[in-house]
């Protein structure tokens, strides 16, 4: 294989593992030795997955409702799941409450001695029950199985408060931009270069219809407002009152001077025309 072919092969494989290929590119790849392609692709797939995990950040726990939904869907693929779940369900939870019905197993026929055994067992049970009733404690304690304590989620407000204590964290107050309807905006933005994270806190930023437009954050490292500020991601406001929005800067951001919120089409834009500026926050020099 020539150097050129090798470059082409790895360009195609890299694209395939990162984004997938177009049909014409798949065709190009098909012209290479498929045993080589398969082996190389598999190792690149492992590499990419490893990088993805390494660079992902801390894991966020799966929401409870999603856990339940996925768990439920598993029973379609693993037919025994529902039955085993029923067997291991807590004893205090009636099966009827869980919507589980049981088929009566067929019992072998009992002979005379069999019935005698059952009668003796029944008598012993009655005696035991009477005994428990007579000698029960004055204040009976009913064992109640509490559901396991769920860890309290860390809210954006908690994370913002933590970030405020970080050394070198900067804070700037929001002021109105050029949108008349958003003149009463208040709040602040906190950013840490060290952690490359930040939080925006707003009051007075209206709820947006995400199908029509979204808010987008821009981070300027030059107080003169450079032409290509850092994209801080788009976000929605879904409730009135105070909202706290994490900043997801996609590029390394150093010493931000100005934060700006623009209103853009759904999904945001690569370069903003800066026609609708919802808010601005200047970091004090």
């Amino acid at each position, binding site marked *: 294989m020539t150097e050129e072919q*090798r470059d082409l092969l790895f360009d195609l494989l890299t694209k395939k593992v*990162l*984004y997938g290929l177009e049909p014409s590119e798949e065709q190009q790849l098909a012209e290479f030795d498929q045993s080589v392609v398969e082996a190389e692709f598999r190792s690149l797939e492992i590499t990419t997955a*490893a990088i993805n995990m390494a660079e992902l*950040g801390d894991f966020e726990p799966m929401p409870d409702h999603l856990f339940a939904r996925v768990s439920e869907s598993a029973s379609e693929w*693993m037919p025994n799941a529902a039955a085993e779940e029923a067997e*291991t369900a807590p004893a205090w939870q009636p099966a009827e409450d869980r919507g589980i019905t049981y088929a009566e197993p067929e019992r072998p026929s009992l002979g005379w001695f069999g019935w005698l055994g059952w009668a003796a067992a029944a008598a012993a049970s009655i005696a035991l029950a009477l005994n428990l009733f007579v000698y029960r404690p004055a204040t009976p304690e009913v064992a109640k199985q509490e559901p396991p304590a769920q860890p309290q989620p860390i809210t954006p407000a908690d994370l913002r408060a933590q970030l405020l204590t970080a050394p070198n964290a900067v804070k700037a107050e929001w002021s109105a931009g050029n949108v008349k309807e958003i003149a009463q905006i208040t709040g602040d933005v906190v950013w840490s270069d060290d952690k490359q994270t930040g939080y925006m806190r707003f009051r007075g930023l209206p709820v947006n219809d995400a199908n029509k437009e979204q808010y987008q954050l821009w981070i300027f490292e030059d107080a003169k407002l450079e032409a290509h500020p850092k994209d801080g991601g788009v976000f929605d406001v879904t409730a009135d009152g105070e909202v706290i929005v994490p900043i*997801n800067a*996609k590029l390394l951001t150093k010493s931000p001077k100005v934060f700006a919120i623009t209103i853009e089409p759904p999904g945001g834009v690569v370069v903003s025309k800066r026609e609708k500026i919802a808010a601005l926050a200047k970091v004090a020099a």
Partner: protein
Amino acid sequence: MTDSILQRIAAGDSTAVEDCLKKYGGLVWSLARKMLRNSDDAEDAVQEIFVDVWKNAERFDETKSSETTFIAMIARRRLIDKIRHSNRRITADSLDDVLLEPFTRADKDMQLGLEAREAAVAMRNLRPEQQQVLRLSIVQGMSHQEIADATGMPLGTVKTHARRGILQVREHLGLGSSKQEVAL
């Protein structure tokens, strides 16, 4: 030797399903949230990914990768497919999106497999531009063109950084032998 969760699933042990969700739910959810940037899409994707995991459990080979990496691979396949068939733009983000942390985060106990820890080491040894391109493409799911637009790098340079960076990390992981490829 104790069977892995995937081996137990492949063997029909349905109790392994919940173990799998408990152990890998956070990983898959975080991957989906980061790449899809929309909670509703991420939820649908997570469900589909775990179905893929149940169906492919028997293909897991612990001599080739860790269980964690195998599940991340399955997740990425599904997520890339989702991105390709959606109109997601690079800047799409959601209100309570998780944050990127700096590279030093890899020093924390992440309970990840060896591959991920070694990949973190290898990433730190890459040139900053290579790190940036790989981070944007792998973690954010941005295309080469989108990275070129966002960073101002020529498209060809983005491709080269991606190819050389990924091969250098692979080399560090001991998965390939492409020394001439990774030469800078």
